[in-house]
């Protein structure tokens, strides 16, 4: 297949279909409505099923039911909708069910705004719902990467039996870019061994999928098992990109659309002789701490750039063990830092 020009939301939806997504349950919310709209039109053409839930709460629980059968199920929403889904997401993680959740972030808190934002970094990586759990969180930097990450998301979801979140922002949902969408064969592993609906295949042994355990020792044991899974993700699955890091005096830490803007600023700054590089986490959980070990001795300062009020900065400080001063630059509420602003901020820091 050659490259086609597609809108981000539609590219994400088509990529999901080409990766074998069979069920989609969702509820309309701006700015991601093109995903459910595309799914409602095209999923049935591929033999799949689209249902519009009565709310985000219902939609994520439809996802839970379908995920419990071991099928490739997906939902998408935007920030306040993800807040409503948090109950179900906690249950999905606790019950160890694979699914893919797309969050096309908008500004918050509360109803906030409808314009692009990265205001859900903490919600996505540190919880949202109750209990000790983590999602795998992928933050694509451009549409092709979004397509590729959506397609591989089920491989990770089934490998770890854990929900995977694609954390995109409104820019990515709305922009048009040429992308190549290939067919992708998802590895669902041995679904029969745990999913609903294989009573006979398991030799008349039922499947029981749950998160509740009223025996404290057993609940602790379950939590330890979940932590072992998260530890394996941290060890095996981190993804990141390093940009012009080798001789950098200033290192930008950024992800998603803000990293894309920063990349342009870096190329301008390099042309002017400023030694600026970047660490771009692609997996926000597991966070690529080891990427920050690659920061060279020449580095004097780290600049965290996001479209929020600095939600990743603590992770950057942990990753660098506070060896460098870390400051924040960004905008929120639907505003993005401009290339010029980033250049000015870098020049100010480098003096």
């Amino acid at each position, binding site marked *: 297949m050659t490259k086609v020009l597609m809108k981000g939301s539609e590219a994400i939806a088509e990529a999901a279909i080409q990766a074998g997504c069979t069920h989609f349950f969702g509820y309309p919310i701006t700015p991601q409505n093109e995903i459910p709209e595309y799914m409602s039109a095209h999923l049935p053409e591929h033999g799949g099923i689209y249902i519009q*839930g009565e709310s985000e709460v*219902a939609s994520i629980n*439809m996802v*839970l*039911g379908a995920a419990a059968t071991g099928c490739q199920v997906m939902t998408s929403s935007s920030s306040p909708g993800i807040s409503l889904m948090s109950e179900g997401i906690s249950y999905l993680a606790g*019950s160890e069910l694979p699914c893919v959740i797309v969050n096309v972030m908008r500004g918050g808190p509360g109803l906030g705004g409808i314009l692009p934002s990265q205001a859900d970094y903490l919600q996505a990586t540190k919880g949202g719902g109750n209990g000790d759990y983590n999602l795998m969180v992928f933050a694509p930097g451009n549409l092709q990467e979004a397509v590729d990450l959506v397609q591989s998301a089920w491989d990770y979801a089934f490998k770890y039996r854990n929900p995977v979140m694609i954390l995109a922002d409104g820019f990515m949902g709305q922009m048009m870019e040429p992308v190549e969408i290939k067919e992708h064969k998802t590895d669902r592993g041995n679904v029969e061994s745990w999913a609903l609906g294989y*009573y006979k295949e398991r030799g008349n042994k039922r*499947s029981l999928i749950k998160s509740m355990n009223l025996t404290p020792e057993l609940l602790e044991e379950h939590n330890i098992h979940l932590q072992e899974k998260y530890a394996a993700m941290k060890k095996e699955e981190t993804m990141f990109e390093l940009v012009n890091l080798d001789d950098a005096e200033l290192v930008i830490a950024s992800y998603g659309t803000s990293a894309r803007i920063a990349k342009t600023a870096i190329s301008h700054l390099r042309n002017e002789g400023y030694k600026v590089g970047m660490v771009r986490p692609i997996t926000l959980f597991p966070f690529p701490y080891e990427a920050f070990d690659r920061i060279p001795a020449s580095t004097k300062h780290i600049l965290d750039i996001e479209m929020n009020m600095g939600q990743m900065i603590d992770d950057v400080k942990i990753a660098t063990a506070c060896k460098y001063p870390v400051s924040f630059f960004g905008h929120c509420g639907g505003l993005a830092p401009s290339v010029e602003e980033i250049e000015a901020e870098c020049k100010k820091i480098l003096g």
Partner: protein
Amino acid sequence: MSETKIYSRPESWMKEVHTHYCPGCGHGIAHRLICELIDEFGIQDKTISMAPVGCAAMMYDYIDIDYVEAPHGRAPAVATGIKRVYPEKIVFTYQGDGDLASIGMAEIIHAANRGENITVIFINNAIYGMTGGQMAPTTLIGQKATTCPLGRDPQLAGYPIRMCELLASLETPSYIERVSVARPKYTIKAKEALKKGFRYQMDKKGFSFIEVLSSCPTNWGLTPIKSFEWQLENMVPYYPLGIFKDFE
């Protein structure tokens, strides 16, 4: 002289288990009827249910079929997800009044309105059992609960919700009936209703809803026998038994 066994402990009822339910609780009767039907239809290997939140949260310990746990009130949404993947399996939810008529009101109405081909079994005992006797959406006017210690006041809490009547106002559902398990004669009818609910699902007739008037001796503060007497005297006049909607 010969002997015929006319009633056995159901096969699909978990072996060697003691339920955690209080003595005389209607949940046990409803569970037993479900097990009898699973045995009679021979559908143990293809029936899937959701464990609700409430007293029946651990019903997977008693009925030997595939189970997934649903958050409070969300079972109809979870069932939708399952049934849309497995149209040939038998999917039923089992929900109490707090679960279905309060926190899960949106999910039940919309699952019914989509005509999901599932069977919903609604246990109404007019109180929150598991959490210790708080007011339910079905608590009767004047009935005392720990969060309405002087009795339910309609000025403050409105009137109890009649779920069968509410759902029967929708076009889509196929079958809606209210039954009781207060006496053997009612329990026999309750089993017939549940049987019809499962049968309709097998025949792909769409959404069926069976409300079972139950009891809560512990939180009502009555003996098991007095509880069912109270149910017949107080609940049945407000929640009349019978069919509210039938496809046929």
